[in-house]
C-alpha cells in the first residue's frame, strides 16, 4: 500500500454545471451553477483552498447531516459503466467523455426535450448508480490553462434541446451492414415516424416519409413504419431532423499543445444527487490520482474501488452516503498495479474486487475489501486453447470484467494477441473465463494429439483443404475490440459491446469459451459510402440493462447515439445526444479511429485496438517481411510467427520457398506525440504524418489480402487526412500532475542535459524530447523469434510520457526504464558509467516527462 502524494489534494476549480433544455430552465443555469459552487465549497471545506494537504487524501465532503441519517445508498449494479439506468429505470445517464458532461436522457425516449446536460469539471469515465446518487469517475481535473485548451478541443457543450430521435429500426442479425449515400443515410438521422418530422425537414434532406418507405433508398429499411409506443406519446416533442451532414474535406485541424492539455490536478470521484430540474447536483468530490477511470461499489455502498489508468493505481475509497445532502468520501487504501487498470467488479460478499488491464493478461485482485484491503494478482492466461506452446499469450484491451451471479466465474473480454485462428494475423478477441474455485481458466488447452477427421473411402479424391485438420475456428469478428460487458441473469448470457465492428453480441455464459458460443450478433451502425464511417451507431462503448433484462441501452461514443434495443424482438430506438465538437474532418477521423471494418485502413483491427486512448498495447509486434528474397520493401504486421498463414500462389498451391523475416516493433504511443510535421516512422522514412499513416495501413493489412499499391489508396486519402486531423486535434494525451522537481529529479535532469550522458543532444526538450532524426545505433542482440535488422538507423523517439510506455527499445527488450538505462551502455549517449544512484535519478527525471 502506498500513500497518494499530497499534491493531489489540490483545489477543485471547475464545478459541475447543468445545461437545461427548456429556455426558462436554461436561464436558471447560472444561478444553479452558483449554487453548486457554494455547495462544492461547503463540501470541500473551502471554495478556494480545498482540503489541506495530508498524508491521506481527505474526504471532500464532511458536512454534518442536517436531518437524521438514512441508510447508505446501495448500488443498483456494482460495476461501473459509461451508461447507467437511474431512478427506477426512468432515465439513462451517459458519461460523455468527449464533452466533459453527463447526459441524462429519458429512458422512454418519448420526449427528448427532457434531456439534461450536466457539465462536469473534467471528462467522466464511469458511473455507478446508488439510490438517488450517482458516483462518477472523472479522468482529470485540468489546471486552468489546460481547461482552457481542452475547451477548444471539445468545442461547444452539447445542447440538450438538440437531442433528437433517430429513425427506429429492427436490427437484423449478422455483421453485414449497408454503405449508404448521403441521400440514403440521412433517412436514418431523423425520426421520420415523428409527426412533424416531414413537415420540418431541413432543405436538402430527403423527404422522410418517401425515403423511409423506399427500400431502394434505404437498403436496410426500417421495419417499424408506425411510431413506436414511445414515439407516439402525446408528450413527444416535434422532431427536427438535423441539418444535412457536411461532407468532410477541407476543415482545418486545431492541433492542441500537449504540454498544456495534459496538465492535471488529479482525477476525481464525484457524488451527484438527483435533481428534478437540473439532472444532478454535486454532493461530494474526492481528488484522486489522475486518469480515474474504472469504478465499482461494494454491495452495501460503503466502499468504492477506482482504477487510475495512466497512473497504474487502484484506490479503495470509503463512502458515507447516509447524509441526504453531502457525501463523504476518503481514500482507505491505494495500490500500485500493472499498466492501465480499467474495469472493476466486486463480489457479492463485498470482500474481493477484480480489475482488468488494457495491457497484460493478469488481473489485479483486491482481497479483504471489507476490512484492510490487500493487493493480489490473479493470473488468467488468455485463450489457452488457441495458444501454441506453453508460454501464455499476452493480452490487451481489458476494458471490462464481470462476474457470474453466483461469483463462481469471472469473465474478461479482451484481445489475446498472437492467439491462433484460421484467419488470425494479430490474434483473436476472446472472453476469458476464470473459474474462481480453481483459479484456472474455464477452457481447457488445445491438445496436439487431437484427432483429425477421418475421411471415408467413398469420397473420390478429397481436396486438401477438406478435412483441414487442426484448423481452429476463425476470428470472432463481431467481438473485435470488446469495450463493455454485462451478465444477463435471465438467460445466463453475456452482452458485449464490440467497438471495432459496431456490434452488440450476446454470448452463452455457460460455455468455457463464450466467444465461440454466440446467440445473437446485432450490427448497430449505418455507414457512409466508401467510408466505413459510421453515420450512426459508431463505437459502442457502454451498456445498461433494464431491471427486467428485456432491453439494453447501448451508448455509441463516436456518434453520440443512445440506442435502446429490445433483446427479444431486436427493435431499436435511437436518440442522438450530441454533436462532435471537433472540426468535421477530425470528427470523421474520430469515427474512423475506432472502426475496424475498413479493409484499407484496418485489416479488421482499428487504430484504437493497438493504440487504445492513443496509448499503446505494450506489445512487440512482428513487422514481417514476407517472401523477402523477392520483395524487400513490403512488410506487414503479425502477432506471432505462428500467425503467418501459407499464402496461396494459385487455386490449389502454396509458395513453399518463401523466405520470411521478422523484425520487432514495439507499439508506439500516439497521443500527444504527433504534432510535428515529420518525419515519422522507426527509421524516419515517412516525411509526413500522412505518409506515415499510408505506410502504416499497408503494415496493418492482412498478408493474404493487400492493396496492389499506393495508387489504390487514392479514394481513401481523405480518410487518412481526417485521421491525421483527429490525431493532432482530438486524441488527447494522458493527464499528468505537474509538480516542482524533487532533488533527485533535479539531479536526473542535470545528468540528462550533461555532455557526459548526452541524452538531450538527440532527445531535444524543446521539440518533444526528440530531434526526429535517424541515427545508426549498435545492433541490439537479436531476440528469439526475430531476424537481424536490415536498417540499424532508428529515429530518436520522443520521451514524452516515457514512464508509462514500457517495454523499451524498438524490440521491447528492456522491461523497465531502469533496465533501459542500465543496459544502454553507449548505444544512446552514454549511461553505462552512471552510478546506481545517478541511474535512479535519471529514471526519476524521465518519469516526469
Amino acid at each position, binding site marked *: 500500500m502506498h500513500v497518494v502524494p499530497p499534491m493531489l489534494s489540490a483545489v477543485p476549480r471547475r464545478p459541475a454545471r447543468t445545461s437545461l433544455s427548456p429556455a426558462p430552465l436554461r436561464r436558471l443555469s447560472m444561478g444553479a451553477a452558483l449554487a453548486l459552487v457554494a455547495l462544492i465549497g461547503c463540501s470541500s471545506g473551502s471554495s478556494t483552498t480545498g482540503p489541506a494537504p495530508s498524508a491521506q487524501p481527505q474526504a471532500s465532503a464532511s458536512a454534518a447531516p442536517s436531518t437524521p441519517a438514512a441508510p447508505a445508498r446501495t448500488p443498483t449494479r456494482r460495476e461501473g459503466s459509461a451508461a447507467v439506468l437511474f431512478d427506477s429505470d426512468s432515465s439513462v445517464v451517459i458519461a460523455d467523455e468527449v464533452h466533459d458532461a453527463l447526459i441524462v436522457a429519458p429512458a422512454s425516449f418519448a420526449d427528448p426535450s427532457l434531456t439534461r446536460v450536466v457539465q462536469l469539471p473534467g471528462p467522466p469515465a464511469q458511473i455507478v448508480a446508488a439510490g438517488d446518487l450517482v458516483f462518477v469517475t472523472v479522468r482529470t481535473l485540468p489546471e486552468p490553462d489546460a481547461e482552457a485548451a481542452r475547451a477548444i478541443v471539445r468545442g461547444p457543450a452539447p445542447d440538450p434541446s438538440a437531442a433528437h430521435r433517430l429513425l427506429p429500426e429492427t436490427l437484423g*442479425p*449478422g*455483421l*453485414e451492414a449497408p*454503405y449508404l449515400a448521403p441521400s440514403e443515410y440521412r433517412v436514418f438521422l431523423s425520426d421520420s415516424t415523428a409527426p412533424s418530422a416531414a413537415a420540418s425537414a431541413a432543405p436538402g434532406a430527403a423527404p422522410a416519409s418517401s425515403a423511409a418507405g423506399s427500400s431502394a433508398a434505404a437498403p436496410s429499411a426500417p421495419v417499424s413504419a408506425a411510431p413506436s409506443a414511445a414515439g407516439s406519446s402525446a408528450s413527444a416533442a416535434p422532431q427536427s431532423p438535423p441539418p444535412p451532414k457536411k461532407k468532410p474535406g477541407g476543415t482545418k485541424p486545431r492541433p492542441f499543445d500537449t504540454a498544456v492539455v495534459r496538465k492535471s490536478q488529479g482525477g476525481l470521484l464525484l457524488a451527484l444527487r438527483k435533481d428534478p430540474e437540473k439532472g444532478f447536483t454535486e454532493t461530494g468530490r474526492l481528488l484522486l490520482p489522475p486518469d480515474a477511470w474504472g469504478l465499482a461499489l461494494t454491495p452495501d455502498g460503503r466502499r468504492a474501488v477506482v482504477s487510475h489508468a495512466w497512473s497504474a493505481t487502484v484506490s479503495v475509497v470509503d463512502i458515507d452516503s447516509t447524509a441526504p445532502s453531502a457525501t463523504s468520501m476518503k481514500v482507505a487504501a491505494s495500490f500500485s498495479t500493472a499498466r492501465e487498470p480499467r474495469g472493476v467488479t466486486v463480489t457479492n460478499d463485498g470482500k474481493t474486487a477484480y480489475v482488468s488491464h488494457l495491457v497484460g493478461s493478469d488481473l489485479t485482485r483486491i482481497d479483504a475489501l471489507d476490512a484492510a484491503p490487500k493487493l493480489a494478482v490473479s493470473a488468467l492466461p488468455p485463450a*489457452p*486453447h488457441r495458444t501454441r506452446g506453453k508460454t501464455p499469450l499476452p493480452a490487451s484491451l481489458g476494458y471490462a470484467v464481470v462476474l457470474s451471479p453466483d461469483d463462481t466465474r469471472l469473465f474478461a473480454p479482451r484481445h489475446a494477441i498472437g492467439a491462433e485462428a*484460421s484467419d488470425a494475423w494479430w490474434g483473436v478477441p476472446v472472453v476469458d473465463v476464470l473459474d474462481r*474455485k480453481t483459479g484456472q481458466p*474455464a*477452457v*481447457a*488447452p*488445445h*491438445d496436439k*494429439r*487431437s*484427432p*483429425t*477427421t*477421418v*475421411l*471415408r*473411402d467413398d*469420397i*473420390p*479424391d*478429397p*481436396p486438401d483443404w*477438406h*478435412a*483441414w*485438420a487442426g*484448423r*481452429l*475456428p476463425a476470428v*470472432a*469478428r*463481431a467481438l473485435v475490440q470488446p469495450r463493455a460487458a454485462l451478465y444477463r*441473469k*435471465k*438467460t*445466463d448470457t453475456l452482452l458485449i459491446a464490440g467497438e471495432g465492428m459496431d456490434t452488440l453480441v450476446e454470448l*452463452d455464459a*455457460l*460455455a*468455457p*469459451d463464450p466467444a*465461440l*458460443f*454466440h*446467440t445473437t*450478433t446485432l450490427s448497430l451502425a449505418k455507414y457512409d459510402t466508401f467510408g*466505413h464511417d459510421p453515420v450512426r451507431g459508431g463505437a459502442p462503448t457502454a451498456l445498461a440493462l433494464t431491471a427486467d433484462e428485456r432491453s439494453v441501452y447501448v451508448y455509441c461514443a463516436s456518434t453520440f447515439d443512445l440506442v435502446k434495443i429490445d433483446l427479444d424482438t431486436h427493435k431499436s430506438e435511437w436518440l442522438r445526444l450530441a454533436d462532435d465538437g471537433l472540426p468535421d474532418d477530425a470528427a470523421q477521423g474520430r469515427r474512423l479511429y475506432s472502426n475496424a*471494418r*475498413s*479493409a484499407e485502413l484496418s485489416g*479488421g483491427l482499428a487504430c484504437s485496438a493497438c493504440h487504445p486512448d492513443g496509448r499503446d498495447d505494450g506489445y512487440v509486434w512482428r513487422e514481417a517481411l514476407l517472401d523477402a528474397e523477392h520483395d524487400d520493401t513490403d512488410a506487414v504486421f503479425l502477432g506471432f510467427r505462428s500467425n503467418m498463414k501459407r499464402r496461396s500462389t494459385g487455386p490449389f498451391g502454396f509458395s513453399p520457398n518463401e523466405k520470411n523475416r521478422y523484425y520487432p516493433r514495439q507499439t508506439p504511443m500516439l497521443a500527444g506525440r504527433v504534432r510535428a510535421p515529420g518525419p515519422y516512422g522507426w527509421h524516419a522514412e515517412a516525411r509526413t504524418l500522412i505518409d506515415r499513416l499510408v505506410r502504416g495501413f499497408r503494415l496493418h493489412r*492482412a498478408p493474404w*489480402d493487400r492493396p496492389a499499391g499506393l495508387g489504390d489508396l487514392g479514394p481513401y486519402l481523405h480518410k487518412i487526412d481526417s485521421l491525421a486531423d483527429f490525431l493532432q486535434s482530438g486524441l488527447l494525451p494522458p493527464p499528468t500532475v505537474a509538480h516542482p522537481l524533487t532533488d533527485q529529479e533535479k539531479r536526473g535532469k542535470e545528468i540528462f542535459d550533461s555532455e557526459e550522458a548526452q541524452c538531450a543532444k538527440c532527445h531535444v526538450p524543446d521539440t518533444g524530447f526528440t530531434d526526429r532524426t535517424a541515427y545508426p545505433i549498435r545492433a541490439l542482440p537479436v531476440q528469439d523469434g526475430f531476424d537481424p535488422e536490415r536498417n540499424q538507423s532508428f529515429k530518436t523517439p520522443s520521451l514524452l510520457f516515457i514512464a508509462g510506455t514500457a517495454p523499451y527499445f524498438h524490440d521491447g527488450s528492456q522491461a523497465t526504464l531502469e533496465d533501459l538505462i542500465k543496459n544502454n551502455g553507449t548505444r544512446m549517449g552514454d549511461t553505462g558509467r552512471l552510478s546506481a544512484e545517478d541511474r535512479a535519478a535519471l529514471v526519476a527525471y524521465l518519469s516526469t516527462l
Partner: protein
Amino acid sequence: MLRLPRSARPTLLLAGTALAGVALATASFGGPPAPSATPTATAAATATAAATAAATASADATAGAASSAAPAASAPAPLPLLTAADVLDTPAPMPAEEDWPQGKAVRPLRGAPEPCTFTVLRGWLRIVCKDRLGANLVSGDPTDVKLAVTGYPTGTWVGVSPAFTMITIRLRRGANQILSLLSVLVAGYGGAEPIDGEAIAFLYGEDQPAPLLLISKPAARLDLSGN
C-alpha cells in the same frame, strides 16, 4: 482414390467401425431416433436433472420456443437432456455402428440442435451433423474422441449429396471439450470456401450435478476483402 492422413489411419481402425456398415450408419445420420425409441430416463437421472432444473429453465429461455414453452397437446415432447446416468463410471467399449439406432436421442441444453442430432448409448455420445465437412477438437482431452465424415462432401458445394460429420465421444467425469464443425460457403461461380460451422461443448466438471451439452450458431461472418 482414398487419401487418408497418415495420423488418421489408426483412429479409423480404433474406431472399430465396420466399413461394411457404412450404409447402415449413413442411414442413421439423417436424424435422431424416433422419440418413441428413447429409453425412459432412470430415477437417478431424473433426480440429477431435477438438480439442474433451475439452470435448465433459464437456459431454455434461449433454446427456442420448442424447449422453453409448455408443449402443446399435439407437439412432440422435447428430447431429454443429458443426465448423470448417461455417464458410466466404468468405461464401456464404443458401440458398434449397428447398435447406434438403439441409442437415446438427447438435446443440448443450449442452442438449437440443427443441423445435428445427438444420441447417447452406453456412455458414449454420437453427434451427427448434416452438411458439415469435418470437425476439430478445439480444446480438451482427445482420448476417445473420434471424428469422421461420410457422404459426398464435394457435393455439398453445389447443394447435392450432403456430407455428414460424425463425432463420437466417450462421456466421462471431468470432461471439458469444445469441438468446432467445418462448413462450406457456396458462392456460385465464386466457388466454395470452407467456413466455420457450429461449436459444440461437452462439460462435466467434478462439481456439476449433470453433464452439459451446448451448441452454438455459426459465427457471424464479414468479408472484409470485398468492402
